[in-house]
């Protein structure tokens, strides 16, 4: 690594920290801008009770003081305060709870998408313009155009209701199959297309021709040269893929009743559980920002030819 790379990495880390801070700040002030404050809509409460509640949650202090307390609590001990609707529970505990299921769901979906996508993409590139390639391209184009909630609902109709093969409820591990497939389909289709185009690009390079001319076996060319190099652009998709899986899980967990963080988030929006909305937004945003950072840096480190600007 030369000094230019290190400078680039430092710059990216700085931007990531800045982004997280912007997210926290936007979230805080946007939530405080809601008229009536977080207790509006509760059953009629007396002015005294209202004041007591506000004092308890620190809402009576000046806005800037609240902001700095909030910021300090997050940075020093990941404390997003207590949930307003699930009495007696801390937001961070609810998030950690939901995260266990959601992380399992997301990671399996990501691996599935990656493996199937790379295999299909390589296959399509090697059989370019043949029937296999055309079928793969048509299917992936269709999947890229379908919102996740539609894929999910259609799978639900097909496999749980019409065929009654899989449970519609995502609380059991068998019930997680459909949500995982739903989440994996879009990134899989995207990775397939990405791998195909970069593989085609690599197959046209001089060093592939040289290897062929030297008499290297085609298996070695594909796995040793072509596939390895064509996977580099796929690294850049790691960040967007995580972002997709996070937002996708919001609806997928809703459809299949998976007790994950996405479902908590959606119900906290409906319940107007502000600390919960803020906490989840910030945690998920941090995850996405970090993943983007990692995949960007990895991309530049793996391929030294890439220009750092």
């Amino acid at each position: 690594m030369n000094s230019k790379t290190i400078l680039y990495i430092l710059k990216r880390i700085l931007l990531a920290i800045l982004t997280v801070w912007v997210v926290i700040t936007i979230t805080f002030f946007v939530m405080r801008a809601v008229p009536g404050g977080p207790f509006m809509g509760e059953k009629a409460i007396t002015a005294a009770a209202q004041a007591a509640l506000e004092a308890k949650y620190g809402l009576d202090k000046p806005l800037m003081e609240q902001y700095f307390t909030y910021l300090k609590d997050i940075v020093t001990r990941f404390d997003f305060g207590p949930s307003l609707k699930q009495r007696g529970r801390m937001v961070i505990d609810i998030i950690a709870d939901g995260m266990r299921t959601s992380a399992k769901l997301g990671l399996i979906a990501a691996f599935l998408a990656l493996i199937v996508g790379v295999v299909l993409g390589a296959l399509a590139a090697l059989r370019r313009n043949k029937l296999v390639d055309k079928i793969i391209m048509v299917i992936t184009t269709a999947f890229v155009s379908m919102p996740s909630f539609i894929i999910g609902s259609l799978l639900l109709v097909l496999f749980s209701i019409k065929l009654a093969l899989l449970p519609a409820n995502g609380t059991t591990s068998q019930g997680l199959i459909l949500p995982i497939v739903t989440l994996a389909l879009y990134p899989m289709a995207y990775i397939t297309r990405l791998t195909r185009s970069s593989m085609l690009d690599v197959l046209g390079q001089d060093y592939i021709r040289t290897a062929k001319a030297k008499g290297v076996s085609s298996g070695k060319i594909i796995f040793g040269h072509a596939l390895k190099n064509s996977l580099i652009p796929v690294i850049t998709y790691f960040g967007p893929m995580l972002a997709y899986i996070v937002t996708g899980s919001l609806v997928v967990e809703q459809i299949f009743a998976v007790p994950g963080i996405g479902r908590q988030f959606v119900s906290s929006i409906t319940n107007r559980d502000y600390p919960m909305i803020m906490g989840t937004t910030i945690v998920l945003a941090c995850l996405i920002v970090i993943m983007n950072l990692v995949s960007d840096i990895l991309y530049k480190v793996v391929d030294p030819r890439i220009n750092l600007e």
Partner: protein
Amino acid sequence: MDRKFTLHVNVDAFLPATEAEKEYMVQMRPSSTFFRDGVKRLLKNRIATISLIVIILITLASVFIPMFWPYSYDNMLGVTPGKPVDASFNNLRPFEYGRSEQKRLEAGETVFPHILGTDSSGRDYFIRVVYGTRISLAVGFFASIIVLVIGMTLGSIAGYCGGKVDMIIMRIVDIIYSLPDMLMVILLASVLKTTLTPVIEGTAFEKIGSNIISLFIVFGVLYWVSMSRLIRGQILSLREQEYVLAAQAAGAKGSWIIRKHLLPNCISVVIISTALQIPNAIFTESFLSFLGLGVNAPMPSLGSLASDALNGISSYPYRLVIPAVVISLIVLSLNLFGDGLRDAFDPKLRT
């Protein structure tokens, strides 16, 4: 053949041109403009043409069908003022009729059929799908226009002015670009909904609904960045062209140069990315509607129809499948058409 050098002038070369020679110089093919070339290339692309036809058909259907359809999207057929609610109109299957309609049929009258039945509140489902398509298309279109206007303004200012202005705008772009967009959309939409409702009460905006307006605001705030990056890049390269220098030398002002010289030259890039923005906006709207943050009831959108259908999914799966198919068809054909546009109008990206 050996040719001797001679100072004699060849007189034949100075004779008036014959008719045949004149004919030879006439341009047989009228000169073609860039735009006409592009359209020709676009129409040659069969996939793009079919997509365009699909989009036009869907748009025309969503505009004209509600004009003559006997039912409206918010008309609960079982509800007549002053009478108890007739529940026989709720949850009709395709081509079934409510009780009073059946009586009219037996009396020999003709009743317009409910092609797709009715929903759980007794509203004709076909017209709701048509109306939902209209809403989704309109939202996608206007959101893209907003993105276009903001992105174009800021991008061209950044590109043309350069220096400090450019740096400030681009740093803002960097930060917004790295924000997780969907989360911010959900956050802003969920908050704006409560904030906007009292503000727009009694104005013309009330009819559109606070959710749609907050969606537009969110789009305006978040999605202009990629458009402005694109335009800035274009302007940066165009700015160095000689004709800009010539215009400056002739005393043209900055805004004139941007409007008359720079923007027309990056118009194809702008059109293409706007076209590709529309399916993106439709996607986002349907996603928000699905989470209950989209259009206000009883107004339907394709996303909210799909979301409502989840409740009765085991008995009425077609209520989900139909909006799902329509939305996928719209997004797919817009994407394919956008790709076709790019291939036809952007010579640099053409392979």
